[in-house]
């Protein structure tokens, strides 16, 4: 099971209405691929984050399907439109059923 999973997100505090902003996200997670073996030669079971979504006021910005080939501590950088002030909600879905969320408010400057 994944431990100490901490999401980290960087969103600007404010933007002009209709502006495109860059969002960077990182979540600490081992992303165990299921290909590795432990010291006794037994395969280590797969344990990854399989889906990541970003929503703004309920509208989807990006929806990513992750496979074991994504590196440890999955990092994503993407761009979003900001039509109005509101809240970004970031959600990560773990193989073990856990869901990690983080939200960031953005104001219109």
């Amino acid at each position, binding site marked *: 099971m994944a431990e100490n999973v901490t999401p980290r997100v960087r969103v600007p505090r404010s933007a002009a209405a209709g502006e495109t902003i860059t969002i960077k996200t990182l979540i600490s997670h081992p992303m165990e691929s299921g*290909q590795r073996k432990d010291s006794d030669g037994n395969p280590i079971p797969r344990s990854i984050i399989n889906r990541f979504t970003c929503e*703004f006021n309920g509208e989807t910005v990006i929806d*990513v399907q992750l496979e074991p*080939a*994504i590196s440890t501590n999955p990092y994503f*950088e*993407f761009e979003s*439109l900001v039509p109005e002030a509101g809240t970004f909600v970031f959600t990560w879905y773990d193989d073990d059923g856990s869901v990690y969320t983080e939200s960031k408010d953005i104001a219109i400057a």
Partner: protein
Amino acid sequence: MKLTRRATLLMAMGTAAAAVLPFRASAAAEDAIATFTGGATVGAGGLTLTAPEIAENGNTVPISVDAPGAVSIAIFAVGNPTPDVAIFNFGALSGSQSASTRIRLAGTQDVVAVAKMADGSFVKASQEVKVTIGGCGG
């Protein structure tokens, strides 16, 4: 060297195996790409895949994709045990159809990106990445 019947058979089998093995590796990737495209023909252009030419560590290879007008972009690592890497689906509020992430590569291989455009067509871009240390553990 005298060619016996047994030696000839062994040589024939060895040649056949050598011919089949590299084909197998790319067949898995082709299957994965076909699953994403639904067997549609894949064009070129309109999709930019940025990856390093040489990656010292296959555990974290930074890549980015950019395809203006795409609905979704899938990334495949042709030489990995499982070729699928990620599928980016862009929503109504995406500012641009681009994204960056870090991926694992088992060894030197081609990284392939396939974008599904808004009109339902597909485009492909690929780049070879030379990997010094593979990233799939052992």
